[in-house]
């Protein structure tokens, strides 16, 4: 891999099964019934944004659209609402991918936060055009928690790629 980011290490290529497994786990996390608890992050949006930044050739608009439809059914939302939001999110994250990787994880999170906020604004606009009530400002707090989670998530999701190529019995990992 070419050194396009600050990391001094050369990471191993991502495993496709791990990428999709993380997306499916994030999808299951979004289905946890938290009701109308404020500040619950949209896990799937976060993981989608992460892989769209890291692997823009593998995860893109199509993945966002497909998972968005699944979320729409799972949440009982209007069909296409999350699909539209995730398509815009993955497009933005794909476009940012060349730039964002030069920054530290915390600064990356600051780049992702406007995308997550935009995603929520799009969903609010769509539903309010269809006649729903404004859900309240707490609705947007989820994107701030999600942006904070970017930093730990960065290490969790990249963990398999940090492994060295050849196994060494004297080294712990």
């Amino acid at each position, binding site marked *: 891999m070419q050194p396009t980011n600050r990391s001094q290490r050369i990471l191993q290529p991502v495993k496709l099964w791990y990428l999709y497994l993380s997306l499916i786990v994030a*999808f*299951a*996390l*979004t*289905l*946890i*019934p*938290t*009701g*109308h608890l404020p500040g619950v992050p949209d896990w799937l949006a976060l993981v989608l944004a992460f892989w769209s930044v890291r692997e823009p*050739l593998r995860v*893109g*608009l*199509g993945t*966002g*659209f497909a998972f*968005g*439809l*699944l979320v729409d*059914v*799972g*949440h*009982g*939302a*209007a*069909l*296409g*609402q999350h*699909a*539209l939001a995730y*398509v*815009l999110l993955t*497009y933005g994250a*794909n*476009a940012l991918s060349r730039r964002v990787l030069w920054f530290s994880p915390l600064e990356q999170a600051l780049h992702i936060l406007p995308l997550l906020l935009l995603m929520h604004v799009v969903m609010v606009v*769509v*539903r309010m055009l*269809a*006649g*729903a*009530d404004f*859900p*309240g400002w707490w*609705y947007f707090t989820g994107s701030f928690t999600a942006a904070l989670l970017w930093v730990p998530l960065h290490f969790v999701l990249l963990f398999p790629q940090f492994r060295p190529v050849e196994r060494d019995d004297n080294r712990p990992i």
Partner: protein
Amino acid sequence: MSLIGHNTPPIFKRGPAPTVRLLLYVSAALVLLVTDLKFRYLEFMRQTVAVVLYPVERAAATPADLVLNAATYFATLAKVQQENALLRRQQLRMSEQLMRHQQLAQENSRLRTLLGMRDELPARSVAADVLYAAHDPFTRKVILDRGSTHGIAKGDAVVDERGVIGQVTRLHPIQAEVTLLTDKEQAIPIVVRRNGLRGVVFGAGAGQLELRYLPATADVQPGDSLVTSGLDGLYLPGLPVAKVLRVDRDTQAFARIFCVPVGGVEQSTHVLVMGRLSTPLPPMGGDGDKDS
């Protein structure tokens, strides 16, 4: 692509430009949104996906169940015994009411035959558990663990032990989506129990309901109880819905009447889905018009 007879090497093939793909996907999403919100054509697709998602949803609901049930699990024996005694007393009271109800029902049907009226329509009911509250923050909905395979029909009333809490608005084979009374889009026809005045109650947000379109002079007082009228052909008549909280008469031509639901609209976990066995309405269309 084949400018001088060569194909593009696959290393440069990335499909259409990102902007083109964005436009394609956004328009696809917008088409889906309009067909779903305006025309409701996509229920079949939704049902299919919902059945596939069912195991994932059940798995995801487990941690929430654990948190909710932990309190019950660690309850002491004394508490359970107390609750048992309470339930026994309640059952005794109910069975007394039930005996009287049976006698009254018999008397009612005898009187109806004497008067030559049609018998009341038989009702059916299915007990169900609330799986979870729907995540969508724009609506007030809960998901039940029973669906069309258990005999639930679209439009059925959902009641708890105190009164109506909502209506089945979307039906999957093994799940049902219930729109709660407090949802902005939900309306329910009622009568005021005290004087038989008819009206329609709408969800007003913040756990309240509003009885709309009654003139400012209408005879409604705070404390009046509202029950279903059954005129819609969906709800059984006489189910308690709400209590009038306050009446604002000095606004416009219409009184603003705020009510609170009687049932535990956003709290109940065990509910009963009640519907009619057959619809009492005459068929719509030409025949109905000729009769009237």
